[in-house]
């Protein structure tokens, strides 16, 4: 079982992830002089959630051929579910001091909590919603789309329409999600102060664990028999159908699982960043997720995570060093990866390694 899940690249990645997960909090909290500043902890935590999001997309795109341009929507929905809980946690410490209503509702003169906010004062209810809401949306959307065999670019475009429509909806104040300011000014999570280094380190570890778990779940699915059917669907959908498989069921399953993973990523992202707003739904964000996966290596899981981290890291560095250049670099990545690196960075590295080994056949692995 373990051997099936953990091959060389997965093992290597998890080992590195483990070392980082231990080293960063230690460097931040324990060691004298704080060699790892607090903002770096939050930043790395954010990268981890991006990586998990990329793994989720790789699961549907890399293994099932569903190019979703709306995965940002699932991520944002998870984030909003978490944000709603954090808003309720603020309690009387808000600007208006209302024990039940979040500040923006008081500001809009709302009398009572809308029904869809009920229950979010419970952490576990919120955690359930983090997975259920994106999952339910994916289920309904996928059920309609896959059943009527909307595929290829058409599917991509309607997923884009989905996230675009959600963005417009969440921008509306009347929706009850804080309008274009989104949800912010969180105070604490489960009683721990969000500004404290310890909490931040805890969230970082949670992100790392979620990433590892996500990778393993995805790996479990893709290496199972079901995973083989998924790949068959990706490569020859009609043929798989003719062989007697209910293609839409398989697609729906993997789409919903992926949406839930994206939701979890969003839920950890929100407290780390301290805000969730409708901008997360923007179609551009969702398309960027695709480039993370493509850059790292489509259909490799680990590659997707690496791709997300590479892009996020270069964004952080470039936007502070040469803000003008960033979009050129990002755009260039899109073009180069599709033209030159069809298997992504991971694919290229492994191919290079294989060539290297073939040249020296005496060295066995």
């Amino acid at each position, binding site marked *: 079982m373990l051997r099936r899940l953990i091959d060389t690249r997965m093992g290597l990645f998890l080992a590195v992830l483990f070392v980082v997960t231990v080293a960063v909090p230690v460097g931040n909290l324990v060691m004298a002089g704080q060699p790892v500043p607090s903002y770096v902890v939050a930043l790395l935590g954010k990268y981890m959630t991006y990586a998990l999001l990329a793994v989720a997309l790789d699961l549907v795109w890399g293994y099932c051929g569903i*190019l979703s341009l709306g995965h940002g929507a699932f991520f944002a929905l998870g984030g909003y579910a978490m944000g709603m809980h954090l808003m309720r946690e603020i309690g009387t410490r808000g600007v208006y001091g209302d024990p039940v209503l979040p500040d923006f509702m008081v500001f809009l003169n709302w009398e009572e909590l809308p029904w869809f906010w009920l229950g979010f004062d419970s952490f576990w209810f919120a955690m359930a919603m983090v997975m259920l809401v994106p999952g339910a949306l994916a289920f309904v*959307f996928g059920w309609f789309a896959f059943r009527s065999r909307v595929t290829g670019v058409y599917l991509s*475009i*309607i997923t884009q329409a989905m996230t675009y*429509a959600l963005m*417009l909806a969440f921008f509306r104040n009347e929706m009850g999600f804080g309008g274009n300011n989104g949800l912010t000014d969180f105070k604490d999570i489960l009683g721990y102060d969000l500004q404290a280094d310890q909490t931040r380190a805890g969230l970082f570890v949670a992100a790392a664990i979620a990433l590892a778990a996500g990778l393993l779940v995805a790996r479990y699915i893709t290496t199972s028999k079901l995973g083989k059917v998924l790949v068959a669907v990706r490569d020859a959908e009609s043929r798989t159908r003719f062989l007697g498989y209910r293609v839409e069921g398989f697609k729906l399953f993997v789409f919903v699982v992926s949406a839930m993973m994206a939701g979890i990523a969003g839920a950890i992202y929100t407290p780390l960043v301290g805000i969730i707003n409708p901008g997360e739904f923007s179609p551009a964000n969702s398309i960027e997720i695709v480039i993370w996966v493509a850059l790292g290596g489509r259909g490799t899981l680990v590659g997707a995570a690496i791709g997300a981290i590479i892009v996020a890291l270069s964004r952080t560095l470039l936007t502070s060093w040469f803000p003008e250049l960033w*979009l*050129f670099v990002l*755009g260039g990545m899109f073009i180069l990866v599709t033209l030159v690196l069809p298997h992504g960075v991971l694919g290229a590295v492994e191919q290079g390694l294989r060539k290297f080994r073939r040249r020296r056949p005496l060295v066995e692995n």
Partner: protein
Amino acid sequence: MPPSPGWRGADRFQGTASYMQKNQQAKERSRQGSAVIARAIPLAWLATVFLFAAAMLLALAPAWSQAGKFEDLVNALPEGSYSDRAGVVGAIAATGDARALGVLQSLTEGQLFKQKAGGRIVALSASGDPARMIDAITGEDLGPYSKSAVKKIKVNNGLRREIRTAIGVLSLTSADPQARLKAAEAAFASGDPAQLEALDTAMSAESDREVATALAEARAVAILNTDAPVSDKLKAIEVLAMRGDRDAQGILMPLRDDADLSGPVREALEEIEQRQMLWGLAQNVWYGLSLGSVLLLAAIGLAITFGVMGVINMAHGELVMLGAYTTFAVQEAIRTAAPALFDWSLLIAAPLAFVVAGGVGIAIERGVVRHLYGRPLETLLATWGISLMLQQAVRSIFGPNNREVGNPGWMSGAFEIGAMTVTWNRLWILVFALLVFAGLLTLLKRTAMGLQMRAVTQNRPMAAEMGINTGRVDALTFGLGAGIGGLAGVALSQIDNVSPNLGQSYIVDSFMVVVFGGAGNLWGALAGAFTLGVANKFLEPFAGAVLAKILVLVFIILFIQKRPRGLFALRGRAVEA
């Protein structure tokens, strides 16, 4: 409409009190104002007589009421209290003298003075720097303006209001029909019965039909504000029902419960309501068509590349943006080099935008897209990358802010059809979109190149076997689609902000049009664009702009379930690819 007898003379102000109670405050105020005039006129006359009795022979007194009336009234302007002067202003207007307008305008602008030595009334001349003084009555030049030599004739807000009304009455007889129309509309808005006489005079002399209608409507409102006989008021209500807009509705509303008029007023209101609804419908259809034409322009180029090559060009929005910036550049060049050509700027910019965007499109096809045929999803990503780079390039060159693109004369302004306003720029864009569509259709159906394009769309390998250079057709098709995006940019520059984000705001919408209409089908794009445009504008009044858009998106998502290949699905082998 003939002026009704019994409506002339000072007795028309009797009984206004009963109206004052009925009408809203605003009207009350104007009524009070006119009552002031009525009271003040005799006072002013007295004052005039008193002040100039010393200067004039008493024997001449009957004569000045005829010949010297205007001059004496003007000379009386600095005297007396504000309410006295209000009466004088009304009297000046009533003389109908050609100079009256100028004097009143100077007065309201605070540019009318009394000379300390000699007591002549002087105004500042409109031209000349430093300002010169001219005699307000004779127009004689009295040398440069000096502050110490004159005393300003002061006005307060109440007086200004009187002057405005007086100017309105005077403008009713202006030689310029536009000015008369404006005056008639102002009279309509004020509804002041004091204007009745002036309106009647103006109507009997009016030859322009539009102005005559406006005058009749203004007169109807004025009549409703008096205690004229019911038969006159009924006629007035009819006139207002014919007008049938919101203003007429607002005037009739308070009369709904009037004992004598309630029946006809209710009928008229109903009629107006119905007409308003029809015009509202027409206006919505027009807005929808206008939005549809914009969508069509933005989407049609996309439809070609998507249909013929199965390629999703995510950079299409940026090609539109390039077209808009080309327009900006052309206008800048014209502004500096040949300002006279400004009205032609769009016609010059259109072919340039086509060439610029088309050129970039061909470069994209040759450089990137060509290597990705058969991999539509990768093409989507690569073109998205190109779109990011184009955005940043334009931002680096032109700056991140909105750029000002002017409307040529023939594209600015609006005209009215009934209760519907149509702006010229929207109308021209609709015409332009239809022209582009027709041109494209001709190109595809009537030319050799179009034949080749269609052949490649339907069956690429077969077309290649028949000797068509599919690579060349691909490049030209992509260039054509891109060039049309550039043309769309020229049109959009007229109604939208020209900024590096211009393309982004249209990309999702234009995809929706293509997906809804069915890829690769021009008629599909046409039907899709106009359906979505009209649907959007019809939902807006009920749901608000944002929710309407969301509803349309949801509708498209559901529609795709029913017809996964769009409204006009393409048949042929290309579909299976």
